[in-house]
């Protein structure tokens, strides 16, 4: 595994470098040894700063675990497992092109969340993760790039809007709907938290227990089928409307089928069918 480092000088660092050069010039031209001493101290300060920052980033291991569903333009928490060296690591920042998180103190192990926002749907490859810090003095900012071949599929951003749909109402569905009217929805399980979801759906007990936000999902018995025809659609906005419609329909217990230009997905329901539909939309 190749480890690559990068060092950037901050504004204060440029000031230190300029002051060191000026002092060195003065010392050389006057032969004043106390000026040499101060110059030597500034050089030593730079060296020690470099060594401390190197040790700070050196032994840190990072594991990144993506959530089950990632929607475009929606901040999504990635689970980050950090394992530090024997000594404590201070003021770390984990950064990817899609978001960053700060970690003031790491000793041995820590789990945190990295909130990433992907701009659009599709497949993304996180080739490396930037672990950086300006510790200890803030004159230089050292970054370590941790190779990370993680591929994630980002689903389209769900948006409410008009969409061409074909609803098929069955006899069985009508009967069930009549029976269910006025009754509460059935508990179906938990799903990963999405930014913008209503607070009423947040699983507070689960959050208190696990410290991880999740959404309660309810399932109504299927009482109909919904066909979405996206063969003629091309704009991102319309795909987003379709995504929202699919999520709502599945939530309502409907079976959803999808017609895409090169693919047709027969109606179905349940988490695995939801995954198939969203993946198809992400790649459409």
């Amino acid at each position: 595994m190749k480890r690559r480092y990068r060092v950037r000088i901050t504004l204060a660092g440029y000031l230190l470098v300029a002051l060191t050069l000026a002092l060195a010039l003065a010392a050389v031209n006057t032969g004043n040894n106390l000026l040499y001493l101060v110059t030597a101290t500034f050089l030593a300060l730079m060296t020690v700063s470099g060594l401390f920052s190197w040790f700070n980033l050196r032994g840190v291991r990072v594991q990144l675990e993506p959530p089950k569903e990632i929607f475009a333009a929606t901040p999504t928490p990635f689970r980050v497992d950090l394992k530090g060296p024997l000594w404590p690591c201070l003021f770390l920042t984990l950064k990817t092109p899609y978001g960053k998180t700060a970690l003031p103190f790491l000793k041995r192990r820590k789990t945190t969340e990295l909130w990433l926002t992907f701009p659009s749907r599709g497949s993304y490859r996180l080739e490396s993760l930037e672990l950086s810090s300006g510790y200890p003095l803030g004159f230089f900012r050292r970054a370590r790039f941790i190779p990370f071949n993680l591929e994630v599929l980002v689903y389209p951003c769900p948006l409410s809007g008009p969409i061409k749909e074909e609803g098929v109402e069955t006899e069985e569905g009508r009967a069930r709907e009549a029976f269910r009217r006025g009754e509460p929805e059935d508990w179906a399980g938990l799903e990963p938290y999405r930014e913008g979801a209503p607070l009423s759906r947040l699983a507070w007990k689960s959050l208190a227990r696990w410290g991880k936000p999740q959404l309660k999902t309810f399932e109504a018995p299927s009482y109909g089928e919904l066909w979405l025809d996206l063969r003629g659609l091309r704009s991102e906005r319309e795909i987003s409307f379709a995504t929202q419609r699919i999520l709502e329909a599945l939530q309502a217990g409907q079976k959803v089928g999808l017609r895409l230009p090169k693919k047709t997905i027969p109606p179905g329901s349940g988490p695995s069918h939801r995954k198939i539909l969203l993946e198809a939309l992400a790649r459409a």
Partner: protein
Amino acid sequence: MPEVRPLSWAWALALGGVLLPALYLFKDLPLWSEVFFVGGLSYLLLKEGRGDFKPLALKAQLLILAPFLGLTFYTFTPETLVPDLLGFLLVLATLKLLGERAPRDILQLFLLGGLFLVGAAVWRLDLVYGLVFVLEVALTVTGLFFLYAGKEVPVLPQRTAFLLLALGGLATLGVLLLTVFYFLFLPRPQYTFWASSWGASRTGLSEKVAPGEVSALKEDPTVAFRVRWISGPRPKKPYFRVFVYQDYRRGVWQARSYKRPPSHTKGPWAWLEVLPQIEAVGLPVPGYALKVKTLKGPRAFLAPEGTVRLSSPGPGLWRIKVFLGPLPPETPPSQFLEVPVTLKEDLLPLAKRLEGGGPWETVARVLAYLRENYTYSLKPGAPRGEPVRWFLFESHRGHCEYFASAAVFLLRTLGLPARVVGGYAGGEWNPLGGYYLLREKDAHTWIEVFFPFQGWVPFDPTPLGGATLKRSAWWRSLWDYLQFKWSYWVITYDLGKQLRLVRGLSQKMRSFSYSKLALKGSLRIWLGLVLVLVLGAGAWRAWRWRKEPPWEKFLRYMARRGHPKSSSQTFKEYVEELACSFPEARSLFEELLSLYYREAYGGEDTRKDQKKWWSKFKAFARQRKF
């Protein structure tokens, strides 16, 4: 857990960083800046105490600063440039202390502290600067740790704050060690455009001695020279000769100055190094100088009668080979018999009265007469007429120059060649540094008398004025030793010393031989312990590696190469994912999965097979370079 605000700590440390050099330079700074500083600090403390401190706005700071800037320019002179600028910086620092406490402002305070240190480097050269420097480095480095922490988080748990404090201390130690390294090895030019000020006082000892003039040297504790003994026997009561006075005209002794060639004399000799702390034209020599080497500074040359002179006064370092026996005659001794005619007539009756059976007895009687009948005084008053005559027949009081002059003329009147010698008597021996410390108050005048077949022999006619080696308290010796080292290794460090250091190191490295490495008992034990610890750690690591199941090694190996197994994945899911990424290794991954399942769920021991598989996998990974 209690919490602390790192920015507050950083500000407090920055305040210390300004206060420390300001106190150090307090007597050198302009009064107006000190008054403003003390006033500003009092105001700050008062307001902080009441809890109603409001930071001064930037505009107000600039308005207050403007008149001080004008004052600095108005009072500007080249001689007071540094203290005036430092005074202005002190005002600026006071305003910064009264202003906002944002990270930028605190960084500026640290910068001002650093500039004070630079200013002090130009102005003061003493050892206290070294102590201030070390403390300033500690305050600044630790303060910068907190400043950075304050930029990242508003509050810190107390435990983390203490950790930062400890890390700041560790970093300070590192900075100081590296400072020594950089200081010693930063390239030094042979010549500089502007030489820095020597900053030393001029010695009162000179080529001329006028017994009639009152000298304040005897009360001045300023260090004049340090004479480091390198080799050879060391005199118990040393007289450091600087000038030999030959001519006496109108109450003033004058030393001659010309170059003489190096000489060789059989007898005891020593090598020593002379490091002046004052501007001098002659170097102290505890005997007869045979050779002199200029290591640094103005060129030194062998001067008349075994003395050493400098081509010009200035800082430097000289190595001298000194003959420690009776001083050989250089100028014909008959030239040291001259007595002013007017004085000779008056001295003759007294001299005749003191004449003994032989030269030794005569000298003893003259010295005894002077010691018994005359009083030593640093303030004998202004002489009326010829100083020696006035001392011998009127005042009967005088200092060493009167005693030496009177003894010389009495002996010359009786036909014995004698001369007055000026230099330093006694001094303090510092066992830590192996050198004599000569202060201005050790300056002395004594005589030398010539004895045929023996040479010049020193005598001290002054009562209680013999060379006595003083003993200092250990802490004074230590302080002076540190000052000496500071002066030798820091203030006067130059290209020559740097080259000698590098040469010395390279010679030591070349001559280093393991067979010669004789380790002391305790060192052996410590080295042994370290070796055992290192070997133990290595063995433990190897044992852990061997004990670790191959499938775990495989997981770690893949994680290092950017394919970690997420905690939510089963081993099977993970292997399937890897097989998609590396289809050519699918069969290998499936084999491992099968071995893992057999062991984990079938209760079968597949460790041997796993090891074989691991070897196979490593070979595959090497071949495919993944």
